């Protein structure tokens, strides 16, 4: 499966996703600008992404706990998600998203 990611600088990347991996892990392992400080434990919100509007229904809504965590970033939009809470699967082949400014490393 492929994930299409636009980074904070506007550059587009096509990343090979691995079934069962978190989208955050794929973005991080490809060396893009994502801090992902807590390693996917839903404790930091530094893996914040904007999911392309066309993919929102497929990806589904964030859990209450994820909504709470999103309170700790200042750039939330209606299509905000934490990428560590999205699991790669064939259904998400072609998933298109943009890294939020608040996900950037220092």
């Amino acid at each position, binding site marked *: 499966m492929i994930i299409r990611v636009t980074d904070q600088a506007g550059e587009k990347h096509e990343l090979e996703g691995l079934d069962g991996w978190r989208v955050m892990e794929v973005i991080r392992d490809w060396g893009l600008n994502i*801090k992902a*400080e*807590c390693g996917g*434990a839903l*404790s*930091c*919100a*530094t893996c914040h992404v904007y999911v392309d509007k066309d993919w929102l229904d497929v990806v589904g809504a964030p859990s209450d706990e994820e*909504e*709470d965590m*999103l*309170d*700790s*970033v*200042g*750039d*939330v939009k209606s299509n905000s998600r934490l990428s560590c809470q999205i699991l790669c699967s064939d259904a998400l082949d072609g998933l298109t998203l943009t890294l*939020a*400014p*608040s996900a950037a490393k*220092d």
Partner: protein
Amino acid sequence: MSTEITTDVVVVGAGPCGLFAAFELGLLDLKCHFIDILDRPGGQCAELYPEKPIYDIPGFPVVTGQQLTDNLMAQIAPFAPEFHFNRMINTIEKQEDGSFKVATDADEVFHAKVVVIAAGGGSFQPKRPPVEGIEQYENKSVFYAVRKMDDFRDQDVVIVGGGDSALDWTLNLQPIVRSLTLVHRRDAFKAAPASVNKMKELVMEGKINFLLGQIGKLDGENGQIDHVHLTTDAGDLSLPATRLLPFFGLTMKLGPVADWGLELNDNTIVVDTEKFQTSVPGIFAIGDINWYPGKLKLILSGFHEAALMAQAAKAIVSPGERVVFQYTTSSTKLQKKLGVA
């Protein structure tokens, strides 16, 4: 005038690895002072996942971040380490006699024969909201914490956030400000329900404003804001404001660790695997902050590193003194130190 403290060991960082180091150093009669930017011990365990379970601490099938911290604090209590919280270590300087002078941003100076850096993923610092140019206003009219209430007296204050800090300071500052607006992105709060109810009462009474939205841009000059722009569902609006308090929690930053003249490898400190000593003799690094071939960033690795580091630290603090290897189960000497014999 600065406070001067002399001790055997200064430990930078009171995360799990630093805390356990106080145990291993204590068994060897070395006295520790801790310095941490947080206001409590536990590092990542206390700040990022106090309620989450950890499953790979030997002997604990499951323990939460906070329980592990509490247990470590109980375990090191016999050695009475001293804690200096809410301080950032700024500089470490080697003195001619081989000891170290460690200075904090709270104007304290520590003199120690050994420094143990257990700074983990770096120091915890407030998350800066992604607002262009916010740096120029920081500590002048934009603050991430309230140090002096008086800085807010008779000001037009905007507080952003929905957690306990945002709500607590809304309630605490309301009586002394000229105006106060709480801004949060949604109408649900992570704060204590009693505070949320009290805040809603103040809104009903017209004593504060509550707006759904996020901060967009700041206007002002010479470090002084005069307007905060908000993006709201109903469109953008500009709010007169002389003080802004964004409360978005904390994030880890490497901070001054990078400036201490130690050999680094990609933001971690290079150590040997016999003593966990850095490129500067007498300065050790344990836990997540160090690097050596095969390093695993796990709490249990930090515990092991602390034990070996302590032996080497003892040799520096008490040169020539023979250290006999003993078990806590069988050594009455060690048990006396722990207050159990």
